[in-house]
């Protein structure tokens, strides 16, 4: 049934009801057999028609976009892939030559691993099962910092940054040591931490660290440091539906407005009439404050649109925020291709063990 209402935000079938004590209708119902006499079988044309992706905001480090017309499972799959399966390059092995600081080797190594690097993972290969380091799969960094006294510091100075040289080991102290053909591959953008000001540890005169690090490509499900995102998540579009039967009393209009996030509810300055600002509806944080006041009972229905996803992805690392989502699609396609291959093997009923190898 392709009625016009199906596209409308106000189609109750698309709604998740946000009640005072619970959430209702969380699952989608547009699958075959749910609604009698309606055909909900999947249809590419229909899907194309409904699918809409709009970018609402892009900054240096994050992106927000809307994804409308997909099932939660699809949106969630992208979210999961972004967190766990989009590869990045991180420091994995740390070789300590010298460390006389107060921080123990393991902790320092752990901290080094967490540094986001600006290396485009596409330029590198995953390490194979042999773990052999080559110039294709490993980047070598080095830190060699010795803290010394600043002889020219004023006598009554107490700030360690002035008193000493190199009182802090920063991420900018990581020096890349090119190997093999890396110099050519990474030309123009030498591998380094994305943020040069991460404090890794503090040193005092006489303390020294001399460390060699190997960075490899990996995925977030192996270790959180390989996750390319700080957050990758979505929320579904809030929807505030005023009840025309029971308007908000004018003297309570201001209070009603305060029950929602700023800008969501408009109050007519003359009539004190309350209306929902459609354009700002997404600003609502769903604090459900309005449910707390008995005087607004029945005035408003809080809902959310089930297939309207407001994505927010914060990039941390090599990918620009707008590249992250396409990367996740790439990973998804690979996975699908894999399954397709496996399915074909199965359906062709070829000879063999009957086991299907699923490539990683």
């Amino acid at each position, binding site marked *: 049934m392709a009625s016009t209402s199906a596209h409308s935000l106000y189609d109750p079938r698309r709604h*998740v009801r946000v009640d005072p004590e619970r959430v209702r209708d969380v699952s989608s119902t547009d699958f075959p057999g749910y609604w009698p006499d309606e055909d909900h079988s999947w249809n590419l044309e229909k899907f194309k028609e409904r699918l809409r992706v709009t970018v609402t905001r892009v900054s240096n480090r994050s992106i927000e976009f809307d994804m409308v017309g997909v099932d939660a*499972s699809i949106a969630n799959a992208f979210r999961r892939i972004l967190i766990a399966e989009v590869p990045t390059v991180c420091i994995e092995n740390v070789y*300590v030559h010298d460390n006389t600081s107060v921080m123990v080797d*393991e902790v320092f190594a752990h901290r080094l691993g967490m540094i986001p690097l600006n290396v485009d993972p596409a330029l590198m290969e995953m390490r194979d099962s042999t773990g052999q380091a080559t110039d294709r799969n490993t980047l070598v960094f080095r830190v060699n910092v010795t803290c010394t006294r600043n002889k020219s510091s004023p006598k009554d100075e107490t700030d360690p940054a002035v008193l000493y040289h190199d009182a802090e080991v920063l991420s900018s102290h990581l020096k890349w040591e090119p190997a093999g053909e890396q110099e050519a591959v990474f030309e123009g953008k030498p591998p380094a931490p994305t943020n040069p000001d991460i404090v890794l540890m503090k040193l005092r005169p006489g303390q020294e660290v001399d460390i060699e690090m190997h960075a490899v490509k990996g995925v977030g499900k192996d270790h959180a440091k390989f996750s390319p995102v700080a957050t990758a*998540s979505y929320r579904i579009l809030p929807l505030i539906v005023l009840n025309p039967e029971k308007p908000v009393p004018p003297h309570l209009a201001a209070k009603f407005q305060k029950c929602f996030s700023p800008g969501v509810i408009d109050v007519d300055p003359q009539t004190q009439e309350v209306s929902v600002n459609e354009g700002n509806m997404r600003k609502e944080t*769903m604090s459900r*404050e309005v449910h707390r006041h008995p005087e607004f009972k029945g005035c408003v229905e809080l809902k959310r649109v089930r297939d309207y996803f407001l994505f927010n992805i914060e990039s941390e690392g090599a990918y620009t925020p707008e590249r992250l989502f396409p990367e996740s699609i790439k990973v998804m396609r690979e996975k699908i291709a894999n399954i397709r291959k496996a399915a074909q093997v199965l359906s062709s009923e070829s000879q063999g063990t009957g086991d299907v190898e699923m490539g990683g």
Partner: protein
Amino acid sequence: MEEDDWQNPDAAHWKGLGLTDPVKSIEDKWLLLPAFLKVKGLVKQHIDSFNYFVDVDIKNIVKANNKITSDVDPRFWLKYTDIAVGFPDRTDADAIDKSVTPHECRLRDTTYGAPILVTIQYTRGKNIIRRANVNIGRLPIMLRSNKCVLTGRNEAQMARMTECPLDPGGYFIVKGTEKVILVQEQLSKNRIIVETDPTKGVVQASCTSSTHGGLKSKTYVATKKGKIYLRHNSIHEDVPIVIALKALGIQSDKEILLLTAGNSEAYKVTFSANLEEAAKLGVLTRHQALEYIGARVKINRKVVGPRRPAWEEALEALATIVLAHVPVVGLDFRSKAIFVATMTRRVLMAMHDEKMVDDRDYVGNKRLELAGQLLALLFEDLFKTFNTNLKASIDKVLKKPSRTNEFDAFNTMQFQGDHITSGFVRAISTGNWSLKRFKMERAGVTHVLSRFSYISALGMMTRISSQFEKTRKVSGPRALQPSQWGMLCPSDTPEGEACGLVKNLALMTHITTDVEEEPIVRIAYMLGVEDISLATGTEIYGANTFVVHVNGTIIGLTRYPARFVSNFRKLRRAGKFSEFVSVYINHHHRTVQIATDGGRICRPMIIIENGKPRVNSEHISMLKKGEMTFDDFLHRGLVEYLDVNEENDSYIALYEPDIVPTTTHLEIEPFTLLGAVAGLIPYPHHNQSPRNTYQCAMGKQAIGAIGYNQLNRIDTLLYLLVYPQQPMVKTKTIDLVGYDRLPAGQNATVAVMSYSGYDIEDALILNKASLDRGYGRCQVLRKNTALIRKYPNGTFDRLADAPLDENGQVQKKFDIIQLDGLAGVGERVDPGDVYVNKQMPTNANDNTFSGQAATVPYKNSPLTYKSPVAGNIDKVMITDTENEQTLIKVLIRQTRRPELGDKFSSRHGQKGVCGLIVNQEDMPFNDQGIVPDTIMNPHGFPSRMTVGKMIELLAGKAGVLSGKLQYGTAFGGSKVEDMSRILIENGFSYSGKDMLTSGITGEPMEAYVYFGPIYYQVGILLHSPRLRHIRTEHMVMDKMHARARGPRATLTRQPTEGRSREGGLRLGEMERDCLIGYGATQLLLERLMISSDQFEVNACEECGLMGYNGWCTYCKSSKKMAQLTIPYAAKLLFQELMAMNVVPRLVLDDA
């Protein structure tokens, strides 16, 4: 302004208040608490007690034992004129810098002690010689005491000494271990306690006398068959009370009656039987009474002089042994007689009215014994022995008829050995206080300071252990006493056998030290107290008279007790005598009690006069500016200390609005009734009380930071949290004890929901990404020591470099050994690796060896790493011990991340183990994309009723949103309403419940989830199942056992039991039941007989008895003998029955 601004009270603004703003009320007066702690510190009781010992008591002890004379030469004498304890120094002979720090002692396994220096005068020939600073031994010094090098140092100086500025001190370092002398709780001395035994119908008044010199004796005045007797250890049988009183010099029956029963008819009737008894026994005069007692006194004299008459013995016993604390000057027994009469009267009163019975558990009747007192006893004992030994050796020298040079006692003194030093060290390191001289035999007085966490160390310093037996099943001593209010923490007590017997001090308590009694007595007389010796019974028990006691001794009467007490207090508030002298009116007994003795718990309170607190806004603002300290408050009479007895005679307002005209005092802050450990709990007043108690036990096990010097310490076992955080929801106590600077836990974002089923029974779900990022990461550091010894025969241990194998390669297990024979710092140690390659001479114990030490053959005795998990070498230390042996300490570190089975706990007694670790993408997330670190099952709440935890979450969430730390201080703290408002302002639901999306399906969840930060104490490894797991894994080798055949027990011929005896595996009763139920008879037969103690017997079908060799010894025939198989145990049973005249007969039949 932020709430934690109390730390710099001199800031121009505090909590938005300017310095000139009037302090309206209550809100700021709690600043007195940090001021109090600034002066006193957290463990002031230990330090004050030790200081008192070192500065005052030790001098008194020496004064009492200051002269040594010789039995040989009557002209010789030696006198101690002064004693002082020096500052800790180094004992190494060749040291140039003698200064020493406590941390050096910890590392080098030495004792942090100072020399005890005396000034002596003695005769040498005809001259009198005076020598100052003579060292007679070394005293272990309490950290942060007057004599400690750490007192008065600032943080920078402490840092230079590698000492943590937050460490409370109050303990000793003996042979490198930190030892605490726990506070001991005892019944107060020199006070009359009346008790009843309802089953026996006995009423008794007892009084434990303790005088300086340590002698203790207990005197009873008790009823026996309706009559009253005096009982004492030194008298064989009970003395009728009238005889005792007569012996004490009260001859007339009338006077006795007046002094005991007074003028009340009922008492007179009860008492009359006692007068009759004395008359019946024919004791009418004092002499007769003394003779009566004298005949029953245990004579205990070493010197065999001429036998003294009985009455003299009695006189001496009464004067010096019975009720020794009541002074008898010049044979004036009057005050002692009145004391005995008072005891008698108390018995009479209790016989008539049960309410007059005293409560032993009342905190006012308790005294706390601290390190100083115990050390004083120990020193007195050691010093006396030292003097006896000295005298003996002086006598020995003097006995020699001809001496070449003049005898100098000083030389003899130098050769006295280290009796005092070793005595102290032995007592403190073993904890055995066995002082025969004072009939004291106590074990477990000292404990190793628990350094599991900062809080465990702090908790140990405030601990009070009771002298009660733990096995006794009486609830009284264990119960929470109302008089503990403000003095002892109501929450902090262990569970199990020591429950209620081990207590902890509340935050703002002080334990008194002795104050000289005589000046106080003089002041009392000055204030109009009439001397007791001049009073008769009529006056003492007169309608308006109150008896005045000082430390339990009766000194006089007053007719105006209220006026007397108020004048006395005025003098105290004016600082005319010690602020720790307490005075109160006991209306019950119609007495005024003045106490100056040590060991009373007291706490400061704001004085109220005319319905107004004496502390006002100006005082507080001066305090803020630093113009006034806590001592100024005391000296100006704004604040005073009240002990339990005086507190219970006062009318104390909890809050300022509660003040009524009769109010005498105002509490400084109600939350100080909790101790340091319970003070860490946010919103404890919202929790079910046992939860707070559980938390008090668990807070001590939480891994965290233990001190600023933690990385310089080499402890046997040290647990550290890699990234400790201060809690989002703090309490004022946290600020005061410094838990925010040495925290043990992390703020975890918690979702209260169920997930996966792996969270049942309090299990927690952890986010793998959080663990990856360092949540709950711990380090375990373990000490390993090796002593490189020098042997008496000249040989010595040595360190060797790694040996090479046949191929000239270093073996794998030696690969971290460097040229000096020690593992390199930072190297990874795998199981089985050698980290100290020590070699010992093969003939180390051969004392006949006299060859070259270098030529002896050596055998390997390396230190190998045994843990199944690899570690890293953290530190290697080489030093010398006090007796010049080389000591090597190797610290090995493991870094662990949380895994399944690790224990976590919030601050509300809610512990749980990690049940599942979930990938971040599978965790639920909220609209902002926040993923919880931990998921906690909501079933943890209803039965535990830890509402405080819920409020903590709410306050924590509000704090995170507003960028502020919130406070959950007991009986106060951030209000739920305010927290909800912050949540609403930030677009969250007021309830703290968020709308989450499932990470697995991607759909919103149908329920709102309580979601926010809760402070979690991480990885409580003690009692953690994981450790057990590792241990079992480790010990499988030790447990593996199987047996086919093997040894049998001689008596029953059954297989032996247990692995150590290579025993069989028992098929028990329940297993037998299963086999019977199943019907597997042949298996049963095999298991229970054939494989066990099968035995062939011959039995006679005729008589049913067992014979042998086919012959029945009973029937004297072999006709009807049959052979059968029975368990040997059955045969044994039959024979044992026969031995007891029971005949078991076997009735045989063919099956």
